[in-house]
């Protein structure tokens, strides 16, 4: 894979660079949206292929930037509501405009992105600057004509879905019916209609009657890519629940519960924490689900609830360091995971700006690093290795030298090609596999 850093988020207020908090390709892969801690959304567009400049093929450049969410203050609880964008999800494109949903902890917004590259000239009543003409000077009528202009990208908020959540929204997912979407917070999941903002339906509620009995929260959720009645949500205890909205209005009773029994030989006080699922993603085929917990990624077959069909170790060398990671809170980091377009390779981030890719067919895996030093423009990424004592090769990194402040939590894979977007704190990296651009 080769690639480079294409963007560094800078809050511009002198306080230092901001942190990218979500990354998402649209359904064609032409656009890539990132959200950051400052509430901004930056959209990148892929340059169309051009015979004249073959080297520029497939580069992503900034297309539009807008402020999606602002910090708010909840007066009732005397608490700030962060403007950090937790998730962005694109709507399937239905006309010339693009639409996306962006959410912070409390409020989801629907944005419409339109292009304007022509403008009418030759008005009868207004002059070029828009001022009304003196009617006495108008002697003849003319038909305004559209003249080309510099491309202008306009982003407008079309809907604001507010006051739906008491707790922090961690996921949003657009339904395959393109009319509804769901938003999930720690204890509840709501179903919204894209056109209706003053009402939402609560479809999952795991809040106990007595909050002191609370032992489990919702960590992620997603609609099935093809079946508009099915969705899955994951919990902090490591279980997945597949729910069918046809069964009842309130889907508290799951249709299927996916849970792997605990391995008694690995049991510790941290077992539950590391089993907490931080991300769940359906495969493009809809047959499998991918989950990420602290140390592993697992592939689940929807038809088998007892255990995952595949388990991959992301950084098992951290298993002996769990207490330290608990102390510095790293054990609570929520890593995301991603499928490639053909569901043959899965990817997830790790520490020290490493990210890992697992080929499900060949069972081979690779560790790569996203850093400025190792990726000059079009530099080829070389695989990295973490050594855990024993023989140490050149360029190996020892576990103790890992930088736990450099974590890759957010990654995205182009829907059809071998292009990946990696968010490393405040830098966005795009890597392309030029040799194997097409899926096989």
């Amino acid at each position, binding site marked *: 894979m080769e690639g480079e850093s294409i963007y560094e988020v800078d809050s511009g207020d002198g306080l230092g660079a901001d942190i990218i908090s979500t990354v998402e390709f649209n359904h064609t892969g032409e656009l890539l949206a990132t959200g950051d801690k400052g509430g901004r959304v930056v959209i990148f567009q892929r340059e169309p292929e051009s015979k004249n400049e073959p080297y520029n093929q497939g580069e992503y450049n900034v297309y539009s930037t807008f402020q999606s969410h602002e910090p708010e203050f909840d*007066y*009732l*609880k*005397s*608490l*700030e509501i*962060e403007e950090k964008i937790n998730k962005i999800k694109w709507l399937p494109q239905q006309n010339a405009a693009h639409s996306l949903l962006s959410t912070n*902890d409390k409020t989801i917004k629907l944005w419409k992105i339109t292009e304007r590259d022509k403008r009418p000239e030759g008005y009868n009543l207004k002059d070029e600057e828009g001022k009304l003409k003196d009617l006495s000077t108008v002697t003849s009528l003319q038909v305004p004509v559209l003249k080309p202009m510099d491309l202008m990208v306009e982003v407008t908020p079309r809907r604001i879905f507010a006051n739906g959540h*008491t*707790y*922090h929204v961690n996921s949003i997912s657009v339904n395959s019916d393109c009319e509804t979407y769901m938003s999930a917070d*720690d*204890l509840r999941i709501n179903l919204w209609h894209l056109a209706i903002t003053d009402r939402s339906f609560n479809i999952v509620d795991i809040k106990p009657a007595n*909050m*002191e009995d*609370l*032992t*489990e*929260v919702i*960590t992620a959720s997603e609609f099935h890519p093809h079946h508009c009645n099915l969705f899955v949500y994951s919990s*902090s205890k490591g279980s997945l629940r597949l729910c069918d909205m046809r069964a009842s209005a309130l889907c508290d009773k799951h249709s299927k519960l996916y849970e792997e029994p605990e391995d008694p*030989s*690995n*049991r*510790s*006080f*941290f077992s*539950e*924490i590391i089993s*907490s699922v931080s991300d769940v993603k359906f495969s493009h085929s809809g047959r499998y689900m991918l989950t990420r917990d602290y140390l592993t990624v697992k592939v689940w077959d929807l038809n088998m609830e007892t255990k995952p069909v595949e388990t991959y170790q992301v950084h098992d060398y951290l*298993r*002996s*360091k*769990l*207490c*330290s*990671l*608990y*102390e*510095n*809170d*790293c054990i*609570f980091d929520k890593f995301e995971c991603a499928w490639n377009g053909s569901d043959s390779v899965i990817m997830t981030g790790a520490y020290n700006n490493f990210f890992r890719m697992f080929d499900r067919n060949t069972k081979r895996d690779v560790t790569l690093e996203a850093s400025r030093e190792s990726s000059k423009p079009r530099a080829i990424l070389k695989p990295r290795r973490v050594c855990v004592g024993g023989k140490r090769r050149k360029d190996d990194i020892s576990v*103790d030298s890992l930088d*736990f*402040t450099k974590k890759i939590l957010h990654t995205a894979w182009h829907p059809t090609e071998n292009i990946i977007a990696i968010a490393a704190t405040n830098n966005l990296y795009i890597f392309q596999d030029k040799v194997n651009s097409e899926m096989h």
Partner: protein
Amino acid sequence: MAGGGAGLTVGTGPAPSLKRGAVGEAGEGAPELAGGGDSSGEAVVLQLLLYGLLLSSMGEEEGLRQTQLLDTMFVRGLKRKCFDGEEDIEGTLAGIKAIPSYNLQRQSLLDMSLVKLQLCHMLVEPNLCRSVLIANTVRQIQEEMTQDGTWQMIHTQSTGQASLDRLVSTDILCRSSREQAEGKHVSGYSAFNKDFEGDQAQDSSETMSTASSVQAPRNLQSNVWEMENPQENKGNFQKSLDQIFETLENKSPNSVEDLFSEVDNSYYDLDTMLTGMMSNTKMGHCDGLETFSSPTATASNSNFKSDLNELDHIVEILVES
């Protein structure tokens, strides 16, 4: 934070004389700690551990190094088959090179968890998932401790300093064990040893050492007491767990209110919140621990609303026992 040659981290704290001693002797030879095999041995270890400790906030890297050994200990601890507290105590004494007992490790983890639950960001709602996971860990530890019969109604732990000492002991536990793992002499301990013996001889008036020396023997006594009264323990334990959540609810209204209830706390003004926060951070985890201690100790640093609730709880506990 000054780093000593022996890897001893010294930060700001209430024991300047100890700091001097520790640093000064860091480079010298490190005679082994003379340990006895008697029941007061654990007391000795505890006192030594508690001595140097400072509430230092370590950088992540440092923290990671220093709790490295705690990781190993916990991983090992998982596989233990039976409660071997007695053996561990003696083993620990024997050479100071020994790894601290599973009980100490577990206690440190409990303390760390309680601190995490209480230290909260004042302005932004805390992460509910994280809080729930930490609370579950606390419950798990406490349940195990109850089953083992080591659960202590910590009457003696009523002072903030004692609780802080215990938390801080994590560093020394890990650091010393790491050095042991690396095959070095634990010169840190020897430094402590000298200070300790010297102080003890002089009948030291240092608050910390006094608290430590008082607390340690009582720990052992409480241990015995606990084992004799497992039933009572269980009832009290459950009450205490509820109490801790209630206390968390009341003490730091911002985070814990969202943590466990939706009580409207808009009547708390900024001052009250700040006061609550300040007392929390100063006392650290001991707020939670104090709920297990005598009620009078906790009442002094709670705010008005929590006073009422605590009185209720005190009455409940008295009635039950």
